[in-house]
């Protein structure tokens, strides 16, 4: 998903869920900031680097491909952009294959419930992070947040479902490498990450091989994922994005304290119903970026102006704050929430017997690292 959904649509969902204009802005800023908080940015503002929620292209190109570097990549991408649906999914194969298969992202998993519950009672920044993760479980479904050819590869069998004279037709998607040409929505020529036969190449991370199609709300497509035993899958983004929106409203009501429990497979269709037609129109409009539409909808909802996302907005505040004040600034609360989310997901992956995100030790269980050293003796 892109800025249109993570920033403007999240604002709309927060406002519909009952948050004020200012609170909704803080939530959507944080939701979008997940796509910007890289190690490079953290280094620039002298913040803890382990709070990174994304990796820039150049960081990935320069990343080592050894085991520890792959753990770091998996921790970031599985925790924030490709939340695994089922860490115990039944599948045939060796341990390594099963581990990769179980990191496939999807909505309504146990980890999503834990993600939303983790943000309850925390800062608005934590709420924003949870909304980013929730929304991406719908857009990035069927891809894993770890480098893997056997999971994330796609082949030439890739078609967009369109309508011609009211009849659904398949139109072949052709992936190219011409950055200057970009995506041509009319001819179906889309930019995509090149094929790499190396299982652990960063080019095989996430949905890069399928280009930006998972990020376009209007796209409906059929393809054959590498992991699905030659079975096609149909991805209906307009429907998935609508579900994501209604689930966000439901989750945000829970996070406001309006609901006692957060359940998966539950959507607040009722509260979104008055706006359904307008939302579906935005989702179905064939455009690479729906920021303007969502912004107009959000401003109509609240009657307030929604400023553009500004990556620099809170950096000065953080840099100038004293060591004790830093955790109370907006970025400080974002970093705390990001670390909590990353720790939780890494721990669940490790506890399931899957070592792809590295090792995890629950400090709470052992008291402190000093105690752990004592226990080892």
């Amino acid at each position, binding site marked *: 998903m892109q800025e249109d959904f993570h920033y403007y649509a999240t604002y709309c969902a927060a406002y519909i869920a009952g948050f004020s204009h200012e609170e909704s802005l803080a939530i959507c800023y944080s939701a979008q900031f997940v796509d910007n908080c890289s190690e490079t940015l953290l280094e620039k503002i002298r913040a803890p680097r382990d709070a990174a929620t*994304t990796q820039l*292209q150049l960081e*990935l*190109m*320069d*990343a*080592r*491909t050894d085991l520890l570097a792959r753990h770091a990549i998996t921790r970031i991408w599985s925790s924030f952009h490709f939340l695994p649906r089922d860490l115990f999914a039944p599948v*045939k*194969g*060796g341990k*390594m*294959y099963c581990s*990769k298969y179980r990191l496939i992202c999807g909505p309504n998993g146990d980890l999503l419930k834990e993600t939303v519950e983790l943000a309850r009672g925390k800062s608005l920044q934590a709420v924003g992070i949870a909304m980013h993760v929730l929304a991406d479980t719908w857009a990035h479904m069927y891809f894993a947040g770890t480098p893997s*050819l*056997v999971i994330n*590869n796609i*082949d030439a069998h890739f078609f967009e479902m369109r309508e011609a004279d009211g009849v659904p037709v398949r139109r072949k998607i052709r*992936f*190219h*490498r*011409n*950055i200057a*040409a970009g995506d041509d929505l009319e001819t179906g020529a889309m*930019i*995509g*990450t*090149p094929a790499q*036969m190396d*299982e652990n*190449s*960063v*080019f095989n991370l*996430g*949905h*890069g091989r399928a*280009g*930006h199609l998972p990020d376009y709300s209007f796209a409906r497509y059929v393809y*054959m*994922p*590498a*992991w*699905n*035993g*030659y079975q096609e899958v149909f991805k209906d983004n307009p429907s998935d994005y609508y579900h994501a929106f209604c689930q966000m409203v439901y989750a945000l009501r829970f996070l406001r304290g309006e609901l006692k429990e957060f359940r998966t497979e539950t959507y607040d269709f009722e509260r979104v119903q008055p706006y359904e037609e307008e939302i579906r129109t935005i989702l179905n409009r064939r455009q690479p970026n729906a920021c303007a539409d969502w912004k107009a909808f959000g401003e109509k909802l609240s009657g307030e102006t929604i400023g553009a996302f500004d990556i620099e907005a809170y950096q000065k505040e953080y840099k100038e704050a004293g060591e004790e004040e830093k955790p109370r600034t907006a970025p400080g609360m974002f970093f705390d929430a990001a670390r909590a989310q990353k720790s939780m997901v890494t721990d669940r992956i490790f506890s399931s017997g899957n070592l792809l995100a590295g090792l995890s030790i629950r400090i709470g269980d052992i008291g402190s690292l000093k105690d752990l050293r004592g226990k080892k003796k």
Partner: protein
Amino acid sequence: MTRINRIENFLIGLLMIAGSIALAINPEESLPVITAIMSVSLWIYGIRMMVYYLTMARHMVGGLRVLFRAILMLDLGYFAMGLTEIPLLYVMLYLAVMHGISGVINMLRVREAIRLEAPSWRLNFFQGAVDVVTAALCLIMIRSTKLAVYIYAAGVLYSGCIRVIQAFRKTTSVYVQ
């Protein structure tokens, strides 16, 4: 190109340059060494591919291609191992044909690069063409084994230099996040 790719290209390039110089200075002794290195490399690559197929790629759509590649590499490695004890002429024949095939593959990849609108197709085409011409000249001059060896050494030297240059070239890479 990632940093690891660059280091890999640089080291392979250096090895090729060293090999070509050794070939030109002492073909009798260096040819068997080169075929042995080639054979071992093919074996290692083939075994790695086979293990990858058995543990992971057999579950993947299109995974059989990995198996075929593994079998081909193991077969070529086995064949190359048998070349260490036969006359120089036949070794040269094998090396020239292999060089030619790699050139043809490079040129075939140009078709794919053009289809994908990748900007690197000119360099690939030129490199492939030089490899094919080197192999053709070797085969034409095969009766004069010494001359064929020099031509082959020049071809390997050229490929090695290109590898080293590529390691330092600025490249754009398409990466979708």
